[in-house]
């Protein structure tokens, strides 16, 4: 703010008239001119309102400063409209006690000042930077919210919490609002506000001015500096939204059609009283009681204006669909986010707030990362980030290689519609959770890159030519940073204004229809996730994405997903056949990608074939077991494998029941071979196909049942903790499982019960584990069978002869 102090030493500031694309002529008052011409406000000239949307919509190059001035224009229109309404109300209502105060000059000034400051918390690329601000851990490391302790991220959280305590709010303050609040409360701002040459006509003390601005920026209803007019800056019906909806559609050249005039003319200062708020909840009644006999004033809308309010909410959804979530805009913004996170990762130090809010424009920041230019306060040394930045500079935007959408999850044929929906919903839910953060999406992109690179090398090794060598070379040059898995998101909204009905009552205006929920439904039906990558590697990334989504999540998408991208038919089936021949993927994967094109099946409780008596003994047992199996076998199984699994589990539970109901618990187990022999004969007696002692994966497998399930046996003569024996058994079996392309390992451990130790419940003897990395889609179910238990003298031991 130092240049302002210097400027105030010179000639008196004069008002200025600005020509604005939306509001026509906007007059800036002298103090506004002084503030606008400071580095603080001028920084916003370089921050594009729509991030990188101008790379797709060339007209959408408008910046935050233009928007800020537009909000000043919008505030003037709102004040004028409200004063007209207030005049009308005071004229028509003869009850003098209900007269409304007009919006005074002091109110006008503080609202205009708040308009200037409301967006100062936006960083480069506007909303596109927000996911970067929320990342809790550097790229490539696990999400760690605790890792932000002591950092500026923690400070922002603390300020958010303090604001929530100090004010009544309609919603939590956004990150950009919190940063704006910190700017407003800073010492340089206090100093500038204290300068009488800037504010020759002062309407409040400096601390009061700061409080007023804070209340406006966060749209407070009550609290220090707040009143009913604060919501004109930040609420569901505010000057900010009135400006950006019109401005964004205007500059993008999209004819959305907001009825701003009607909306303005129907805005009202509502007088909420106990007698005109039927249906108000207890909290509202209490709020009204604290102001009694005065009404609570609140900005709202007449019912006759609700159509234009709905039009605004729904029109905003069309802007999301056509502009904010346009696939190329998303590609560009995802590249910018990735560029910053990679720059941060490669220098080994997190970005500071000062670096993110460096006073340079978006374009300059990109060129800094690209190392075309340097800045002493923004050191970067990242080849990968520089490559991404260069791609943005040259508008070499990433392309769509793979599309995913909830409705396009392909379910197996022959299912009822209800079952198919259940499967689709569950798989989509698991996928979405698996992609919930930038970190998780980066990990998935890295895996797709790895699979693509290995697949390309194998194809070349097998003599496949065409575009493959070029793609392999490009992948080597690019690195995983250029593979971006992107899921669009948007901030949740909810109705937060009241409407005055023709009978004079004030109600929440969602009486027959909730436009916010409608907008969510519309948006979500069309929302599509993409895997983006450079054009030259689209085919191999498309193939790798298909493999990774199938193996990690068990999901395949129908042909409709191909229609959303241009790469759908570019995958050569000979590639998949070659990868099968090279043992890179198995026949099942090939089959599901090429022919079946539907998702795998998730294990359900019924598939575990748990006897009813077990559920009676422990009602949560089955559900816990199913949840445990799904946790590690998250991609699911093919229909064939699932059927074999059911048969083996049925046999295994029968084995456990026999063990417990007969004399085995108190009897003896000679050794591992003894246990294996009993299992073998049990499985065969139930008609299962059992191979014993197959040599695979450099070792000798105990049992392989129905060509699907591996059985690994363990024997322990004595131990304290029955279920903890041979902890590495699953890892050992995993070697064989990999060689056999099996995902199912059962370990059966016979363990002697120590003297005095009670025989545990059956359900406590089953445990689910991951035998390897959790992303592997492989599960180990461990059955522990106790033997050698001493029967208390009061009980009668089974008569079976103890084996020696």
């Amino acid at each position, binding site marked *: 703010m130092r240049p302002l102090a210097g400027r105030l030493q010179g000639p008196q500031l004069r008002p200025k008239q600005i020509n604005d694309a939306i509001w026509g002529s906007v007059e800036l008052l002298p103090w506004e001119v002084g503030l606008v011409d400071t580095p603080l406000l001028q920084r916003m000239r370089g921050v594009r309102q729509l991030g990188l949307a101008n790379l797709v919509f060339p007209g959408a190059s408008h910046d935050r400063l233009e928007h800020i001035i537009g909000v000043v224009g919008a505030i003037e229109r709102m004040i004028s409209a409200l004063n007209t309404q207030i005049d009308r109300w005071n004229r028509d209502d003869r009850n003098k006690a209900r007269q409304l105060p007009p919006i005074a000059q002091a109110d006008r000034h503080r609202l205009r000042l708040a308009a200037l400051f409301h967006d100062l918390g936006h960083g480069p690329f506007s909303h596109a930077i927000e996911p970067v601000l929320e990342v809790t851990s550097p790229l490539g490391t696990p999400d760690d919210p605790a890792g932000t302790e002591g950092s500026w991220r923690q400070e922002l959280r603390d300020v958010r919490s303090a604001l929530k305590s100090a004010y009544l709010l*309609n919603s939590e303050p956004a990150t950009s609002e919190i940063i704006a609040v910190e700017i407003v409360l800073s010492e340089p701002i206090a100093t500038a506000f204290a300068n009488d040459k800037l504010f020759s006509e002062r309407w409040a003390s400096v601390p009061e001015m700061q409080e007023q601005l804070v209340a406006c920026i966060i749209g407070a209803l009550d609290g220090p500096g707040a009143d009913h007019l604060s919501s004109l800056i930040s609420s569901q019906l505010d000057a900010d939204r009135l400006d950006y909806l019109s401005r964004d559609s205007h500059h993008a050249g999209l004819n959305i059609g907001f009825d701003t005039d009607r909306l303005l003319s129907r805005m009202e200062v509502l007088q909420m009283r106990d007698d005109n708020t039927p249906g108000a909840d207890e909290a509202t009644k209490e709020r009204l009681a604290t102001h009694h006999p005065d009404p609570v004033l609140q900005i709202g809308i007449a019912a006759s204006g609700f159509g234009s309010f709905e039009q605004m909410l729904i029109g905003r959804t069309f802007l999301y669909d056509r502009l904010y979530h346009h696939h190329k805009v998303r590609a560009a913004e995802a590249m910018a986010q990735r560029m910053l996170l990679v720059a941060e990762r490669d220098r080994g130090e997190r970005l500071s707030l000062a670096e993110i809010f460096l006073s340079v424009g978006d374009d300059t920041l990109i060129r800094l990362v690209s190392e075309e230019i340097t800045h002493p306060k923004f050191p970067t040394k990242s080849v990968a980030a520089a490559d991404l930045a260069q791609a943005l500079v040259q508008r070499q935007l990433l392309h769509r290689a793979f599309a995913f959408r909830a409705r396009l999850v392909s379910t197996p044929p022959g299912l009822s519609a209800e079952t198919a929906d259940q499967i689709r919903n569950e798989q989509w839910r698991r996928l979405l*959770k698996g992609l919930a953060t930038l970190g998780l999406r980066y990990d998935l992109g890295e895996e797709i890159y790895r699979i693509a690179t290995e697949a390309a090398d194998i194809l070349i090794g097998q003599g496949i030519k065409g575009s493959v060598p070029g793609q392999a070379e490009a992948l080597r040059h690019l690195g995983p940073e250029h593979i971006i898995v992107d899921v669009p998101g948007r901030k949740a909204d909810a109705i937060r204004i009241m409407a005055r009905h023709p009978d004079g009552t004030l109600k929440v205006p969602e009486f027959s229809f909730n436009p916010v929920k409608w907008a969510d439904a519309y948006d979500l039906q069309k929302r599509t996730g993409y895997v983006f990558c450079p054009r030259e590697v689209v085919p191999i990334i498309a193939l790798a994405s298909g493999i990774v989504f199938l193996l990690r999540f068990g999901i395949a998408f129908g042909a409709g997903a191909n229609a959303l991208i241009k790469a759908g038919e570019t995958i050569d089936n000979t590639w998949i056949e070659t990868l099968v021949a090279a043992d890179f993927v198995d026949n099942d994967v090939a089959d599901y990608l090429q022919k079946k094109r539907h998702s795998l099946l998730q294990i359900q409780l019924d598939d575990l074939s748990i006897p009813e008596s077990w559920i009676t003994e422990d009602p949560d047992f089955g559900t816990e077991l199913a949840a445990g199996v799904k946790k590690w076998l998250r991609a699911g199984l093919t229909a064939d494998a699932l059927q074999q699994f059911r048969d083996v589990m049925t046999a295994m539970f029968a084995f456990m029941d026999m063990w417990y109901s007969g004399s085995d618990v108190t009897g003896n187990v000679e050794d591992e071979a003894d246990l294996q022999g009993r299992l073998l004969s049990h499985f065969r007696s139930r008609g299962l196909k059992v191979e014993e002692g197959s040599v695979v994966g450099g070792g000798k497998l105990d049992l392989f049942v129905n060509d699907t399930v591996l059985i690994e046996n363990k024997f322990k003569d004595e131990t304290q903790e029955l279920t903890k024996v041979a902890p590495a058994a699953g890892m050992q079996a995993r070697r064989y499982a990999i060689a056999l392309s099996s995902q199912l390992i059962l370990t059966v451990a016979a363990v002697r019960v120590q003297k005095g130790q009670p025989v545990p419940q059956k359900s406590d003897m089953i445990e689910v584990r991951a035998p390897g990395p959790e992303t592997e889609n492989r599960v180990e179910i461990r059955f522990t069978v106790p033997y050698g238990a001493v029967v208390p003298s009061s009980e009668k031991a089974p008569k079976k002869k103890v084996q020696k």
Partner: protein
Amino acid sequence: MSGRYDQAELLAALWKLGAGDDMMPTSHGILDRALETLKSDLPVELSELTFSTTSVGRRCYELPDILLAAQEAMLTSEPNPTYLSTVVTLSPEQARELAVIHGVGIRKASEIGRRLADRVVALQNATEQRAAAA
């Protein structure tokens, strides 16, 4: 703080176990207030919800985001034509499984869900009575 999808899973599971096929309200702050009255008994992932008196009554700050996450994750489905309530799409078994995954026993989850549903009905009735009396 739990992730929004975790919170959405748990809320949908509690509702399914407690209210069966009844639709879950998503407007007028009914669910917000019901959650607040049960806050101290809610599982840990929902126990950090924060509430405030807003322009339209008592509301939970996080609930709009949780409900959006539920819809994104296909845990709920918006029925036409009012969009004032939502259908929880989980099967009873899926709901039980989600409760267990989030560390809540099935019996406990059912009990909390029932209380939540009862509270919602009570609040809906009270609102209607107030409006009728006015």
